[in-house]
């Protein structure tokens, strides 16, 4: 029946999906245009991708304005029979993904020419993975979330292995693919059990049915198995210890700009999915998953901070540092799901993801700019004496590192501040003390890089040249890192705004 479809899906549904539709169109366009481009015109692909991101941003802003006009009256816009929920939370993440992808594209343009792998597919895959991320953030149905997850993951596997003739890149892609597919399998098994327990694929309905189920049968082994498998899949995706083994390898072997992209956008998407599932679908199982989270958070902070101390490869060091940051963010989720739930914890995670996007991409941009035809530039020796070779970059890198360590008044401080505040609000004093202790560890390995940059003699004394795109990326990330630190109000309010509806809807409706 051709008429039937129009009764199910209204034009409004497609408006909600417009950011993703536009990105898909541009990604397909890049694939087609790339075939016709002579080698010296390949930079057009980056421009096309940038324009695609701009159009998509415009579509997101349009939904954003609809919320602004509607005021507090509108709870959230759902589409496609409740499977997609573009609420304020999703919009916040859409902006994060778009910014992350935009900066990654700026970092890639010149880098790919050096690697002699300047193909249009690279940009198309970045756009496709952003589409997947958006489905993960806006998905309110496990089918859409799973599809989004896989679209993102499969695109990223290819991006990690993009340097086909580089043995490290191949190996990283293989490890990432095997462990990623394995974790997706476990995650899907957990989803199937959740579906079996509740008879629905909608997260809201899963949450409601699971609440009844847990009241009748609080220690049902199937429910616990569903929780454990689902959360294992989620922990794999955000690279929390003990499911982190893929991260250092994938981060080290991937093209540097993709490492940056993975550590911010892919991670943010994993977090969007994790928060959605834990705070709506699995929320009735709170008493069981909080101890699990405490264990994973402490293991993550301990393992990652200790492992980072001895790393000599910058990308690997930053990979462990990014795992450690996941540990801090998990603490926010613990505060957000304790007996007196604290919105500060979840807000802290959102602020953290925002500031992390800028400071981590900035650090990776500096490492990317060290790449030359004959120098890989990702060892700690390569950054030695950077102050004499490129003073501006050395200072910027110092800012990013201090921000990653959480030194005020830089942006990174506010991420940690809200997490620790929420822990104290909910009475988790021991966790807060442990987290602060590990933050000090973090300072040591970040300062090791700073020490190499400022105190040691340069091994390679040639000055570092910056392409205009890379200079733009560094400027954006640098200004944002300092700017958020000095004027944090706006960004903290943005994070609060994104939770303004999700909070009562998800945290209290399931609360009886």
């Amino acid at each position: 029946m051709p008429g039937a479809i129009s009764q199910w899906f209204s034009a409004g549904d497609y408006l909600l999906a417009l950011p993703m539709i536009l990105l898909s169109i541009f990604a397909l366009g890049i694939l087609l245009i790339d075939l016709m481009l002579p080698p010296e015109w390949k930079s057009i692909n980056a421009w096309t991708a940038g324009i695609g991101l701009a159009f998509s941003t415009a579509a997101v802003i349009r939904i954003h304005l609809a919320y602004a006009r509607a005021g507090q009256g509108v709870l959230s816009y759902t589409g496609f029979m409740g499977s997609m929920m573009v609420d304020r939370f999703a919009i916040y993440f859409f902006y994060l993904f778009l910014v992350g992808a935009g900066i990654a594209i700026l970092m890639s343009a010149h880098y790919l020419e050096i690697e002699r792998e300047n193909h249009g597919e690279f940009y198309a895959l970045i756009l496709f993975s952003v589409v997947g991320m958006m489905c993960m953030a806006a998905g309110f149905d496990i089918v859409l979330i799973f599809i989004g997850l896989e679209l993102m993951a499969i695109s990223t596997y290819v991006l990690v292995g993009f340097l086909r003739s580089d043995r490290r890149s191949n190996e990283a892609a293989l490890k990432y693919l095997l462990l990623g597919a394995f974790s997706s399998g476990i995650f899907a098994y957990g989803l199937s059990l959740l579906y079996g327990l509740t008879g629905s694929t909608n997260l809201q309905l899963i949450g409601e049915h699971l609440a009844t189920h847990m009241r009748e049968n609080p220690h049902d082994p199937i429910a616990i198995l569903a929780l454990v498998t689902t959360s294992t899949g989620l922990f794999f995706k955000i690279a929390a210890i003990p499911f982190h083994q893929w991260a250092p390898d994938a981060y080290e072997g991937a093209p540097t700009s993709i490492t940056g992209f993975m550590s911010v956008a892919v991670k943010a998407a994993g977090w969007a999915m994790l928060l959605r599932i834990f705070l709506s679908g699995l929320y009735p199982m709170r008493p069981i998953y909080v101890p699990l989270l405490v264990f994973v958070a402490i293991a993550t902070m301990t393992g990652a901070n200790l492992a980072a101390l001895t790393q000599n490869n910058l990308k690997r060091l930053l990979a462990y540092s990014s795992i450690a940051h996941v540990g801090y963010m998990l603490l926010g989720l613990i505060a957000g799901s304790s007996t007196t739930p604290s919105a500060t914890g979840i807000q802290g995670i959102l602020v953290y993801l925002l500031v992390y996007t800028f400071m981590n991409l900035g650090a990776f941009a500096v490492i990317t700019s060290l790449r030359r035809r004959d120098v890989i530039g990702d060892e700690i020796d390569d950054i030695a004496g950077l102050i004499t070779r490129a003073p501006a970059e050395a200072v910027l890198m110092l800012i990013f590192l201090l921000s990653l360590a959480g030194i005020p008044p830089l942006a990174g401080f506010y991420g940690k501040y809200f997490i620790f505040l929420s822990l104290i609000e909910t009475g988790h004093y021991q966790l807060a003390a442990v987290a602060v202790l590990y933050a000090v560890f973090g300072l040591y390995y970040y300062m090791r890089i700073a020490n190499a940059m400022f105190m040691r003699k340069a091994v390679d004394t040639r000055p570092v040249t910056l392409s205009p795109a890379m200079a733009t990326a560094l400027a954006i990330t640098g200004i944002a890192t300092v700017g958020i630190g000095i004027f944090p109000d706006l960004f903290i309010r943005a994070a609060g705004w994104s939770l303004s509806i999700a909070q009562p809807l998800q945290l209290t409706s399931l609360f009886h």
Partner: protein
Amino acid sequence: MVPLHYYLLLSAILFACGVTGFLIKRNIITIFMSIELMLNAVNLSFVAFAARWHVLSGQVFVFFVMVVAAAETAVGLAIIIAVYRTRETLNVDQVNLLKL
């Protein structure tokens, strides 16, 4: 009619076989097949539950899982070929340039 828990038991056994294969096998292709086995266990459990609840969404999920498995295989085999070209081996223990 076969009771539901027979299907679930079979699905759990298949899944466990897949996980075990993933953990102990050393050939990349075999590891890949183990992952497919895991995904098929997921499919079986979805179909069984869909029959139990009389809701089609579980069966729809199976189609998507199959699509995902196909896409993953396509990308996976391409990556495996790239690895083989640079190393001439399909043993994961010899793909060890990046230290843990």
